[in-house]
């Protein structure tokens, strides 16, 4: 028991996790509670720490690619993208346009599937079971599409330096269009079933408000930041790939509560669909791999940084190269790490149930925090 707890008879320590339904993985929260009120919350990390950064130093640049998909298993393609773009930046490789379009299409599909999992799992946190199954039904369609292109369903390893692994098949474009049609029907259903539900509104409105300043001080990004009125999206603010060619909005809500973060993600599903539609319409013909990609990747000496907007926020890759075929140093900046770090500051004084609602609204993927 904690010292604070033994000294004060009114408080006790509740261990939430590492095996607990609310933590979605092996995260542990050491909560000091006064009744049901959180006095102090301390997340304990590292239960699935695998030292990806050291692995990066021990294998060739190309061999590290599968690792990126295993950090955030829900939006693996964004992580593929971040790493591929960082090495391409270091090598000065120009990616063919078709390949960039395919990257954007698959990444955005992946983002939708990630948000759908979050939506279902979050409702599960809040005690609603059925939306999970509906969301997984829709997500299944995305997984089928991505499987037909990438060959795997979750831990994709689709991107290569200079392009993508292989071109789409003939059914993909129609399949995606069909999916967008069904998703456009599903979204209003989700809003009627869940977003407008009085019980959900009561549970999320004004719960876990995060101020703009807290967001900045803790370096939170992604939907968590955008739910607090921060108009920051790497796709817009630091455009990469072919994102500048698309017309899409960055949903921003100013309330900063759990409901705002919820609405940001739901709106992002719609915006991702808009990007996919435009990308499908504009999809250029051509090769999917750069012709001049060197066989052996040896980026010139120096350090390079690349950020991409993953489903959970800004994913950054910092490469330090010494000009050999392995990385000298590979820093993976994962968004959930920063997003979770503000939890203990924000959850103070909240009810247990609200604190867990806040935790869910941060959309954590533990392997990505622990790396």
């Amino acid at each position, binding site marked *: 028991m904690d010292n604070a707890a033994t000294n004060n008879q009114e408080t*006790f320590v*509740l261990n939430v996790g590492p095996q*607990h*339904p*609310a933590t979605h993985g092996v995260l542990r929260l050491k909560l000091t509670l006064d009744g*049901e009120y959180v006095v102090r919350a301390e997340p304990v990390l590292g239960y699935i720490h695998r030292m990806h950064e050291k692995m990066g130093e021990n294998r060739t640049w190309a061999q590290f690619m599968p690792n990126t998909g295993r950090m955030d298993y829900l939006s693996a393609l964004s992580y593929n993208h971040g790493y591929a773009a960082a090495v391409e930046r270091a090598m000065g490789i120009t990616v063919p346009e078709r390949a960039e379009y395919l990257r954007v299409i698959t990444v955005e599909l992946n983002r939708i599937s990630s948000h759908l999992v979050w939506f279902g799992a979050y*409702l*599960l*946190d*809040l*005690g*609603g*079971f*059925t939306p999970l*199954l*509906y969301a997984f*039904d829709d997500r299944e369609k995305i997984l089928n599409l991505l499987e037909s292109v990438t060959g795997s369903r979750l831990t994709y390893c689709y991107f290569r330096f200079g392009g993508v692994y292989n071109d789409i098949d003939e059914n993909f474009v129609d399949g995606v269009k069909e999916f967008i049609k069904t998703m456009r029907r599903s979204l209003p259903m989700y809003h009627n*079933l*869940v977003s407008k*539900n009085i*019980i*959900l509104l*009561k*549970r999320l409105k004004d*719960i876990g408000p995060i101020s703009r300043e807290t967001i900045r001080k803790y370096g939170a990004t992604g939907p968590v930041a955008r739910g607090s009125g921060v108009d920051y999206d790497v796709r817009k603010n630091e455009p990469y790939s072919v994102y500048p060619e698309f017309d899409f909005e960055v949903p921003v809500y100013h309330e900063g509560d759990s409901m705002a973060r919820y609405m940001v993600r739901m709106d992002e599903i719609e915006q991702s669909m808009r990007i996919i539609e435009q990308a499908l319409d504009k999809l250029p013909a051509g090769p999917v791999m750069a012709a001049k990609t060197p066989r052996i990747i040896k980026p010139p000496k120096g350090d390079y940084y690349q950020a991409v907007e993953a489903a959970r926020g800004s994913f950054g890759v910092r490469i330090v190269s010494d000009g050999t075929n392995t990385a000298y140093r590979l820093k993976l900046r994962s968004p959930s790490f920063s997003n979770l770090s503000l939890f203990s500051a924000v959850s103070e004084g909240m*009810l*247990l*149930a*609200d604190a*867990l*609602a806040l935790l869910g609204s941060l959309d954590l993927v533990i392997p990505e925090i622990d790396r």
Partner: protein
Amino acid sequence: MDSELIRVIAFLVGIIAFAALNAAYLVWLERKGAAHIQRRIGPKEVGPFGLLQPMVDGIKLMTKQILIPDGVDPVLFRLAPILAMVPAIMSFVTIPFSETLVARNINVGLLMIFAFASVNVLALLLGGWASNNKYAVISAARAVSQNIAYEIPMLITVITMVMITGTLNLNEIVAQQPNISQWYIFRFSASPLMPVAFLIFFICSLAETNRAPFDLGEAESELVAGFHTEYSSMGFGLFFMGEYANIVIGCSLAVVLFLGGWQDPFGLYPGVWWFLLKLYLLIFTVIWIRWTFPRTQFYGLLNLSWKILIPVSMFNLLLTAGFLKVF
């Protein structure tokens, strides 16, 4: 005298069988209902449509070891599951399934049911407290305050009903509702708020039985399994059966008080089938609600009771009193 003894024994066996069978098959219904709402199939392997699944589950539960963790209160820990089941079975005694199919037609039947229903919360409290588990204690505290909050509007509504019916005998209450226009839910001459009163009663019985969306006691995403976290085997099984038995009691009461019990809506063929039909429709609604909504937050739950249900049921009480006086 002899026939009376046989009657008691027959009803005793019948009631226990009814309670156990209901608990078992409501689990099946719950799983099937949930599955189809979620566009799955649900249990289908054991027997046709998985109908033997409850039996298999029961056998599994009975063959499991009863684990008594360190540091629990051994007596209370064992007592709590029994305490959860017994009052539920006792309450069945006075439920009129049909005009004649009632174990004991007690004059204060309604009162007796509420007396036993309040024992149920004691079982949760003791089970949670005796478990020596923080999740269980939090859950027990939640369950108690929830039950206190919801007992009030429920009893106010029942008092309103008693004022209208003028009796505590359940069979007499049913007899007063021979057809659909006479059902108390539509008896606007007694009070224009009767459907609201039914709704309050129904919501309260959901909360009293710790059913979703008021299942704060077992909020599995927060408290793992709440008060029965440490229970295994039939200890858990009894809590589980107790919960379903309580749902049956709650819905039976709603049927008796508001929906005309065993009476035919058209006054033609009254009988036990009408009672069961109405009962299972209500129970299905309970299941339907559970698989539709997220769980309420604790303050939301208390606010609903203190800020909405209690004032409205009070208003209904006064209104009914006024109507009784005037008409």
